């Protein structure tokens, strides 16, 4: 055995150390000398803005501006360190090349130069990391919608398995979850005695949950011999997972976006009540005292986008309506964000190649026969399928690998975007 080929330590380190992961590709393609001038210009602009804002708010306090300052501070400090190092570097170089300096000093400078150079590498990385824009929903709690796709009853069974997996994962991480919606379809129940799942929405009430689960959105494919199969054939079916940001319902629990954003017509989170049609079940016959109905179902339709939300879980129509509105807001916010990202990607396609991620693409395969889980984006395969399905540490590994991949992609697109902005005539010059 032991047929493993030799791997250089640097590769192992970059792939295994979580702190550095996001930077692999950058570190291998760009060194400190070739730090993209466009990114540098951008960082400098941001630093200037930071200083200006700090000066402005020296006297007064504005929550919005201080938030912006907080965002800029990271870039500013990273830039400052980088620039200090850069000047140190050029000084040292000047010392070495200066013919008047004596031999001893030159040796010392040469020693320093190597250490400064290595530092430069990390500082450049820090700078790029700080420049990578944070996803706007990153800090929010999230809603996970799980729906069976192709594959009939088996897909529904696997959807319940996935639901169980995410619940276990959240329980292990200590996230509070609640079932926002749980719809079952008719049909034979599986071996657990539960009817097949038609749609489930899991609310993860931990801030930052969106950032955690963002990479889970997409089609999850399963290959296994279903419990309902009598001839022992392997089936392939799919379950789609949708991750939506959970917007705060009222001011008190919204740290990120306030009520103002929900009421501002230009904001992504705004939904005009005039665009939404509310349908409730109307009883036949006289209604009123003649009947005592328990029907509390609510359906909201956002007319411009034709987004439909059904809610019937609670006995109280009031609660169903509140939940349906929450879900509708989340769906629309996500859709608007997606549309914007799509636009940017379209502009950039020539530069960074076709993006592989999308809701319609399969992102992961769970192969029961080989006890293997493969993520198609990061390319990671893990062999401990049972642990993954129990939401164990193996699932962490998979999710982290995708996050690394996402980070790299974002950085690439950031580079591409900046270079495109500085050379609009030659978009393919970069890399």
């Amino acid at each position: 055995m032991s047929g493993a080929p030799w791997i250089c330590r640097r590769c192992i380190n970059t792939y295994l150390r979580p702190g550095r992961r996001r930077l692999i590709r950058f570190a291998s393609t760009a060194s400190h000398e070739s730090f993209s001038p466009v990114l540098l210009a951008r960082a400098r602009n941001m630093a200037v803005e930071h200083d200006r804002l700090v000066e402005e708010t020296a006297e007064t306090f504005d929550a919005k501006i201080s938030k912006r300052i907080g965002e800029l501070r990271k870039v500013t400090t990273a830039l400052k360190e980088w620039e200090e190092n850069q000047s140190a570097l050029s000084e040292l170089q000047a010392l070495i090349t200066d013919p008047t300096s004596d031999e001893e000093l030159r040796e010392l400078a040469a020693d320093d130069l190597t250490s400064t150079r290595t530092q430069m590498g990390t500082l450049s990385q820090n700078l790029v990391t700080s420049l990578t824009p944070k996803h706007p929903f990153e800090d929010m709690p999230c809603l996970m919608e799980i729906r069976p796709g192709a594959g009939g009853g088996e897909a529904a069974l696997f959807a319940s398995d996935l639901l169980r997996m995410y619940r276990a994962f959240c329980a292990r991480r200590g996230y509070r979850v609640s079932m926002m919606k749980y719809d079952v379809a008719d049909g034979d129940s599986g071996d657990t005695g539960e009817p097949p799942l038609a749609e489930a929405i899991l609310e993860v009430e931990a801030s930052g949950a969106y950032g955690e689960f963002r990479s889970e959105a997409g089609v999850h494919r399963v290959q296994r011999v279903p419990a309902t199969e009598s001839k022992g054939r392997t089936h392939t079916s799919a379950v789609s997972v949708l991750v939506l940001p959970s917007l705060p319902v009222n001011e008190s629990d919204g740290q990120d976006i306030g009520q103002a954003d929900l009421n501002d017509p230009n904001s992504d989170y705004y939904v005009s009540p005039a665009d939404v049609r509310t349908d409730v079940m109307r009883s036949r016959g006289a209604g009123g005292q003649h009947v005592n109905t328990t029907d509390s179902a609510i359906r909201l339709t956002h007319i411009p986008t034709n987004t439909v939300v059904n809610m019937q879980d609670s006995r109280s129509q009031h609660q169903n309506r509140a939940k349906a509105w929450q879900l509708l807001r989340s769906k629309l916010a996500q859709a608007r964000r997606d549309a914007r990202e799509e636009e940017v990607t379209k502009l950039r396609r020539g530069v960074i190649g076709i993006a592989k991620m999308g809701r319609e693409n399969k992102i992961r395969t769970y192969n029961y026969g080989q006890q293997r889980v493969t993520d198609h984006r990061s390319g990671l395969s893990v062999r401990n399928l049972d642990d993954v399905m129990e939401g164990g540490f193996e699932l962490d590994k998979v999710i982290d690998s995708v996050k690394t991949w996402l980070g790299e992609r974002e950085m690439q697109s950031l580079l591409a975007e900046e270079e495109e902005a500085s050379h609009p005539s030659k978009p393919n010059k970069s890399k």
Partner: protein
Amino acid sequence: MPRLPHTLLLRAYRISPLLPLILQGTRTLRSAINELRWIREHVEERTPAGLPESVVRRTLLKCCQRRSRGEPLQYILGTQPFGELDILCRPGVLIPRPTEAYTSYLAKILLEKRKVRMQALRASCSAQVKPYPSLRIVDLCTGTGCILLLLQSLLSSEFEDLHLTGWDVSNGAISLARKNLQRVETNQLIKILSRTTHSRISFRSLDVFANLTSQESEDLRCDVLISNPPYISEDHFNHETARSVRNWEPKLALVPTVSTSGSFAPEDIFYHRLLFLHFNVCASKVLLMEVGDEEQAFRVTRMTLEKIQQLSDRSRTITTEIWRDWPEAEPPENEDHEFYCKGQAIPLKGSGKLRAVFVFENGALL
């Protein structure tokens, strides 16, 4: 009642063996699935931890059997949501219907009126802030007290001084309403403590048709009179009410049993009395009455207009409206917007079936 098809029962049985039982009560699969889930949640919540699984199963089966005999789910679970509140229900008292729409619409109107008045008050004497006058609301035939409790929870944030009184002829209803009040107050304890305003709410027993004592007439004086009286005719009760309503809910709360001598239908007797109380006893400015169906809404409107014509004081301008099930909703195109009666156009507000008659005095300050 049509027989349930075997295919439906079989489909229900495949989902859960308990479903066919519930299906006998609900008649539709979708609501049966929902009700089974609610019953299961209720049973699991109530059973103390540590009891064997078989106890839970037995309780669940018992509940489902009760439902299969048509007993309303609300009596089995003991509660019914009404707006943001959870109202206790008990056999012998009418279950709150999902008619919170008109209650919250009334609250909205009252809040708007109060806002206008506050602005007027501020403009007139900006130097000294007058204490705002109190608002008195009387609910006749209050039942579980749901309408009054919801009004209180919607209004108490804006109104400094609220006096709410609910009256009912049935002692069972009064004691249940008091229990509900207690329960709502416990649930909202934090909200109440953090509030500086105070509202007083009480439930008392009264036969609307008895001769009122002078004390009672005094207590009935109010700004807003609201009522959901019994309004089903004997014939409709026998033929058009749902089985669970007919067999399980109190007939006293559904069918007026007072002998009539007037020129109106026996099921309208309460409206006759309410109009009398509104104009002659309560001195109220707003009257809201729930009605059963379209014909009744028109009859009550006609009755109201006649009553207004008889008034001695011609300077009062009183407007009458009919509200549909969802008075705030956008009216669909296939529904009428107006109804002509005695040469007046009565607006039909919102969408749904005609549900309430609303009478108010223009320019009345609240």
